């Protein structure tokens, strides 16, 4: 009779102890997230409401949404947004299509494929600084290869208001190819080989198999790739910092959003305005992810 409550209590003690251990184990990660992810994220929305005083040392004062409206309607922001969107349009489709074509080409049990796969994956390890230095040299007006090939606009390509952004895009596509190839290959390896084989036996050409069988079956991977590539392109910073830089003649045409945020922090020293830009970057990223979730829900259910 008396055993009941005792056993009940030990069970409750054990559950409490398990819960305490659970909280203790997630606490370290939670502290890092709290201090360096959620707090700065929320702080953006507060900072956006305050304007930095024109002289250092003076307190910033509350201006409400006035500052956000001002930033969002400014010429500089609109230019930056247009450049960023143009850049995404240049990088994402090309990066994914080339990655997909290479993945399809290498998706055959033929001699030497392992070497090709390693080569195509290789740019996944080249950092943005490495890629920028490599392409900066290739595009250099004196020692570069592009000028020698007759592609030598004046002013030089990286100071040219028309060509600087496409040049940065080409470098970014190259750097993104490794990831694109890896993602597409992983998707391909999940496509059942017998389906492709059946189409070939029915007399379909490789091109038809690609468009009618491979691409539809790969649509979940392609959607995923679009999201990854778009977010990747939105976050572009290093190549602009190294190859273009503040004060470059083409600067205003390659002032991508993250670069604009950094300049607003470091050069203009107006954290409130930088916070507004950060919120825009977050909303763009969120938008892309939500669109993808909608599309995936609608289109990708047949895979079961």
């Amino acid at each position, binding site marked *: 009779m008396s055993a009941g409550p005792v056993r009940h209590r030990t069970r409750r003690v054990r559950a409490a102890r398990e819960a305490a251990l659970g909280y203790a184990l997630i606490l370290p990660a939670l502290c*890092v997230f709290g201090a360096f992810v959620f707090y700065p994220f929320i702080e953006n929305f507060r900072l956006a409401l305050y304007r930095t005083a024109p002289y250092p040392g003076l307190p910033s004062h509350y201006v409400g949404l006035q500052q956000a409206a001002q930033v969002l309607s400014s010429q500089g922001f609109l230019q930056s947004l247009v450049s960023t969107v143009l850049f995404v349009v240049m990088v994402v489709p090309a990066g994914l299509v080339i990655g997909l074509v290479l993945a399809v080409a290498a998706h055959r049990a033929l001699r030497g494929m392992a070497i090709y796969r390693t080569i195509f994956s290789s740019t996944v390890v080249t950092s943005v600084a490495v890629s920028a230095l490599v392409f900066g040299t290739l595009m250099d007006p004196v020692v570069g290869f592009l000028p020698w090939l007759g592609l030598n606009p004046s002013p030089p390509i990286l100071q040219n208001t028309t060509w600087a952004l496409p040049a940065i895009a080409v470098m970014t596509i190259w750097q993104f190819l490794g990831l694109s190839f890896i993602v597409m290959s992983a998707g391909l390896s*999940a496509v059942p080989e017998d389906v492709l084989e059946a189409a070939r036996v029915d007399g379909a050409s490789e091109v038809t198999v690609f468009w009618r069988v491979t691409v539809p079956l790969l649509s979940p991977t392609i959607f995923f790739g679009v999201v990854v590539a778009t977010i990747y392109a939105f976050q572009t910073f290093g190549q602009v910092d190294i190859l273009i830089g503040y004060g470059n003649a083409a600067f205003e045409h390659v002032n991508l959003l993250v670069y604009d945020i950094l300049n607003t922090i470091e050069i203009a020293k107006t954290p409130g305005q930088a916070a507004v830009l950060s919120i825009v970057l977050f909303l763009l990223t969120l938008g892309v992810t939500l669109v993808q979730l909608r599309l995936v829900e609608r289109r990708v259910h047949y895979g079961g």
Partner: protein
Amino acid sequence: MAADPGPERRRARRRRAWRTGARYALLTLGAVVVLGPLYLTVVNSLLLPSALAQRPPPLVALHPQWHDYATAWTQGHLGIYLRNSAVQTGIIVAGQLVTSVLAAYAFAFLRFPLRRSLFVVFLATLMIPFEVTIVTNTQTISSLGWYNTFQGLTVPFLATGFGTFLLRQAFLQIPRDLREAATLDGYGHLRFMLRVAVPLARPALAALGVFSFLAAWNQYLWPLLVTGSGNNVRTVQIGLKLLQGTQVSHVDVALAGTVIAVVPLLVLLVVFQKQLVRGLTGGAVK
């Protein structure tokens, strides 16, 4: 027409050979596009500055000049920067593995109130790009007095929602019976985690480790923001920018530095390709 299968079959075989040839041609073109820029960088880094501007450009370095590598290493301080990058990357990788193992174990094996909601909180971190948090994070780092320190470089990255997710998936594959059997043997949770769960999740740990290594080593924006003058913590990526920025006339030295910076990672790719691919596609593509 169909009486003789010979020519028909021969034609099919010829078509297949043509297709295979076209496939190899496409693959080789792709390989040239991908490797070409890196190859030219290596060649240029081995040329004398005078040979760099030669037209047509030399495609091989007949008389390789290694002194640019020595210059990049000593005057470009790449030796020090590589060491700094190794320390910074080591701290981040170790930290991420530890915090992810602990949190993933809790989410996979322990029951506690709000477990689901807290896991959603972890996943929510994946929705916030790091670039969105830099305004306040740079202020936090300088108010902590962490500017130009390894703490400033690494502490914001000591936990990862992605890593926790990846390891939780791996832990959930472990049969429940194993946990029950271990309990009967007197194993507490911590001992079970270290002796059973972690060893069984080794492939996922390796994938996360290689992924974290790559991401940390190649960081550019954050080291640029929180390191300044002096070489005591500056990482190799920022060193490359300086090599390019301060020695405009020494393209060859900058390129030698680039090769020094990229070779360790190409080795990493060749050795750990499987783990890297698993880390990069983990959770998204099965």
